[in-house]
Each structure stands twice: as structure tokens, then as C-alpha cells.
């Protein structure tokens, strides 16, 4: 009896190919390429990769206060006493924190919701860190909540629900402005963006 081709591959190799293929953006061919690369690489390299993956899962968690990703109980931003403790910026994902930090325009705190309202994807109010935000506002000296959810349908739906929850708490609630990108060209702006830039125009 002859073995089928897939049985000729040593089981550990087949298992690694299978695991790589589960990752986003990696098809069976890329998975094989990565596997055979590691097979030929120095043991040190494979060890470093395995350890890095384990460390991410073991050491990184959510900040107890703002739910940003961090090592330890609290994230560096929450631990920094020079940050403005009266402002909290609400974002959908940890990457949004990085994006806002890069602007250097904001010195307050954050709150990461970990998603947006999207019934179609099975994401509802209880799946987001909304109750945690409300608890923070009741217990911390927060005066302004900046809603920085994405300017799309799901982000707007999330902001709308948040506004309803925040209104009775007596804090100032603001929403990021929508408008034209710097260095852009009016002619190239899509009609929705140009439309909301008009609605959000201000006095000079």
C-alpha cells in the first residue's frame, strides 16, 4: 500500500503548517513556506518566535482602568500623573489610542471599548466596556468625555448609546469633528466628507 502525499509529511511539520494557515492573510502555500523556513533556521530563531508568542499571551493583558493593552495592572498612560485626569477619550480599539497619541494634541486619559455596536456581527452593548466607563465616571474626577469612535454607522451607533448613558451623569460630552484631511484637495474629497465638513464649519 502506498502512502497518500499528505501522510508523507512528518506530523509535527503538518501541524505547524496547519497552525500558520489559521492566521489571517496566510494561505496554505505561505504556511508551508514559513514552516520550511523555520525547519531550516537556527534553533535560536524558532525559540525566540515561540517565546515571543507565549509572552504576548502570558504577560500582556488589559489595563484595569482604561482597558488598553498593557503589561501589568495599569497602563503607562493611567500611571502617568502628568496626564489630565479630568478628560477621558473613548475609543474603539487599542490602536486608536496609538493614533491619537501620535498627534501629541491630547494629554488626557483613555477608555478602550474593544469594539463597536454591530448587531450584524453579534456585537451588542454588553460586549463593550461601557458599564466600566460609567463606573469610572462616577468614581473619578472626570469632567469631559470625548467620544472618538469611528465616523461610520457602527461608530455612530456606539456614540449614540454612550451619549444616552452619559447624559444623566452631568459630564461634558464631546464628539470628534468630521472633516477634510490636511494636505487634501477639495476636488478629491468624497461627498459625505465634504458635506460633514460644511456642517461642521466654524467662525474665523
Amino acid at each position, binding site marked *: 500500500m502506498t502512502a497518500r502525499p499528505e501522510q508523507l509529511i512528518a506530523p509535527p511539520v503538518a501541524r505547524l503548517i496547519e497552525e500558520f494557515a489559521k492566521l489571517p492573510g*496566510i494561505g496554505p502555500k505561505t504556511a508551508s513556506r514559513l514552516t520550511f523556513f523555520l525547519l531550516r533556521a537556527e534553533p535560536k530563531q524558532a525559540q525566540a518566535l515561540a517565546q515571543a508568542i507565549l509572552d504576548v499571551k502570558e504577560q500582556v493583558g488589559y489595563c484595569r482602568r482604561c482597558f488598553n493593552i498593557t503589561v501589568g495592572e495599569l497602563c503607562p498612560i493611567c500611571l502617568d500623573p502628568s496626564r489630565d485626569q479630568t478628560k477621558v477619550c473613548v475609543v474603539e480599539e487599542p490602536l486608536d489610542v496609538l493614533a491619537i497619541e501620535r498627534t501629541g494634541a491630547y494629554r488626557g486619559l483613555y477608555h478602550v471599548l474593544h469594539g463597536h455596536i454591530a448587531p450584524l456581527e453579534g456585537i451588542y452593548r454588553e460586549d463593550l466596556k461601557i458599564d466600566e466607563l460609567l463606573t469610572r465616571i462616577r468614581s473619578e474626577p472626570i469632567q469631559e468625555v470625548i467620544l472618538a469612535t469611528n465616523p461610520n454607522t457602527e461608530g455612530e451607533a456606539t456614540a449614540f448609546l454612550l451619549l444616552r448613558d452619559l447624559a444623566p451623569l452631568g459630564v461634558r460630552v464631546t464628539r470628534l469633528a468630521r472633516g477634510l484631511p490636511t494636505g487634501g484637495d477639495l476636488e478629491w474629497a468624497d461627498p459625505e466628507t465634504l458635506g460633514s465638513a460644511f456642517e461642521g464649519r466654524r467662525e474665523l
Partner: protein
Amino acid sequence: MFVHHLFLRDFRNYRRLEITLAPGTILFYGPNAAGKTSLLEAIFYLATTRSPRLSNDRELVRWDAVGEAGAPPFARIAAEVERRIGAVRLEVLVQRRADDDGQPLNGAQKLVRIDKRPARAIDLIGQLRVVLFTPADLTLVDGAPTERRRYLDITLSQLDAHYVRTLAHYQKLLLQRNSLLRAWREQRRVPRNVDTELAYWDQELAAAGGYLLAERLRAIVELNDVAGPLYRAISGGENPLHIEYAASCDLGSARDAGSLAERLHLAFAALRSDELARGQTLCGPHRDDLIFTVAGINLGRYGSRGQQRSIALALKLAEAGLMRQRGGDAPVLLLDDVLSELDAQHRAHLLELVYRPDQQTLLTTTDLSDFNADFLTKAQRYRVEDGRVFPG
């Protein structure tokens, strides 16, 4: 407006086609499966970013087309369109989807360019306006309500860029709202704070729906002005056709987007318990219909085959009329093998109404004897054979 140049590459059964067309009446004839319908399909696709045949976009790519430099195969449809407001060059690439390793995946992706600039598919709609006539148009009258909503949506989308975007937005909101309702109905979630959770979706759906309703009601008034007398001419009878918009909720006398949105909002509130029980949105433009009456009789239900065919024809011609009136430019008419379905009287009427010097009309047929000699001398003729087009 008229399609001046048409370029096809690896589209359906065309390997390569480059053809220059004139305004006026153009007749494509040839045997079945030669590629006549595909020509009209290509033009319809450039106008609406959709194929009139309900098919997967990846099937638009010629079956044995080969990709370049490892990229998956693609079809290219491009046209230069002469319009009263100025010429424009439209182009769509439809590429079969593949993963990073070049393995074929389901579906296809579209790349759109307007005057050589990359654009979104939604921005293409309305650049070139077309009205398509097919033997299947009878379903407009005797088919499901979806067909009639599609008729209004395709017409208005080509005339109003804001309508296309609002319609897309409405459909997205509707999916989200229905998912929310369904999760409660299927007891995946406890129905607590129902009104609060629905508030955003109600408000946004009503706002988008209000605009769609206002535009549809305005179009119905204008369509009645055109289709009413057209039906009389086509059917040879005394009474005009009357099109009535049958809304899924009480619109009262509201006609502008704002007050129609308020009406929808009220209807959502009134239907709350029904919607929770059924797990779906029960009123709005996605549930509306059209009713066709002549002398008070509902011909969609009680009309003869001939009467229904006359209505379908009147609706299509009225669509062209509306585009001419509102768009300030005649649309391109695409008549796909429609004459074989009609009796001699209908045929003569249609050809007479369709023949306008300021308008481009593309017809396909397998049989030249469907046309009278007078028509044949006025039309430019092309023979289509096995994915190739020859003049004469």
C-alpha cells in the same frame, strides 16, 4: 447621451473588442450565444455597476482568460460617453479574487476609473444613463414587489447620486436593525431596554427612509404624467395607466423627506411589539410596492397578458422619458431581444417610440425579419458572431 467607443477585454465571450458607435439606432444581429446580450450587459454594467443577469461578478471574466504576472485574470470594460454636459471616460476592471498565494477565492473585486482617476463604484452610477428592455420586463407587472422596487431604485439611482448613497446606507442600517430584532426574537439576548437600543437605528433608518420615500413619491407623479398617455397609445385603448405607490405604513399627506421620516419613526414605534415578535423591520421603503390600474381595475392582478405587456413597455418608456426630462439628456436605450415577444402592433409602436434622432438605441435580435424595411434602412447594422462584431 451616447456611447461613442466601447472597449472590452476578456469580458464574457469577448477576448478583445474595440468598436466605435454613432448616435441613433444600432442593431446587433446574429445567432444565439454569439455575444449580443453581452454587449448590452457591458454597457448596463458601466451605468449601474451591476449585471442585469443575476450572476456572480467573477463570471463576467472570460472563462479561459489568463492573468498577468501572477495576478488573477480580469475583465476590462471601458467606454467613452458623449454627453450634453461633456464627454466622460468610464472604466471598470473586474478581477477574480485570489488569496496571497494566488489560489482562487470566491467572488471578484471591482476597480473603477472615471476619466482615468480611481473612483468608487457608487460614483460611477449616473455618469452614463441607460434603460434596459428585456423579455423578462413582464415580471415588473406580474412578478414580486422586489421587481417594482428595483425598477424605481435603478431609475432614481441613475438620476440622483444622493439617492444611491442613501439607498446603500438604508440597506446597511436595515441589516443591523434586523439583526438586533432577531437576536431578541431568537432569545439570544434578553429584551431589556429595547427602546434605548433601537433608538439610534430607528432614527437613522427613518431619516434615510424619509428621503427615499420623498424621491419615490416625486418620481411616481412624474412617471404618471408620462406613462399614463403612453399606455393609451400602446394599448390602443381609451384609458390611461395609473401608477399608485403602495406604502407599507400610513404616510398621510406627508411628501417631503422630513415629514416622511417622522411618519416612519411613528410607524416603527407603533409596530414595536410586532417587530419584536417577527424579528424584522416591517415597514419602510424596503416593503413598499406599486399598483397599476386602468379605469380603476388592478391590471397587475386581473390584466390579460397583452395588457400586462403594454404596462411593462409603458413603464420602461416612461423611465426613459423621466431621465430625458430630469437629466436634461436622453438616456441610452438597450433593447435585448424584446421584439420577438411582441405582436405586430406592439412592435410597430415600440419601434416608432424608440426611434428618436437625439437618442442612441442599441437593439439585439436573432431575426432581422422582426424589423420592417423602413426601420432597417434607418438603423446601423452589426453582425455578431462568436465574440466578434462585424459592420454590415
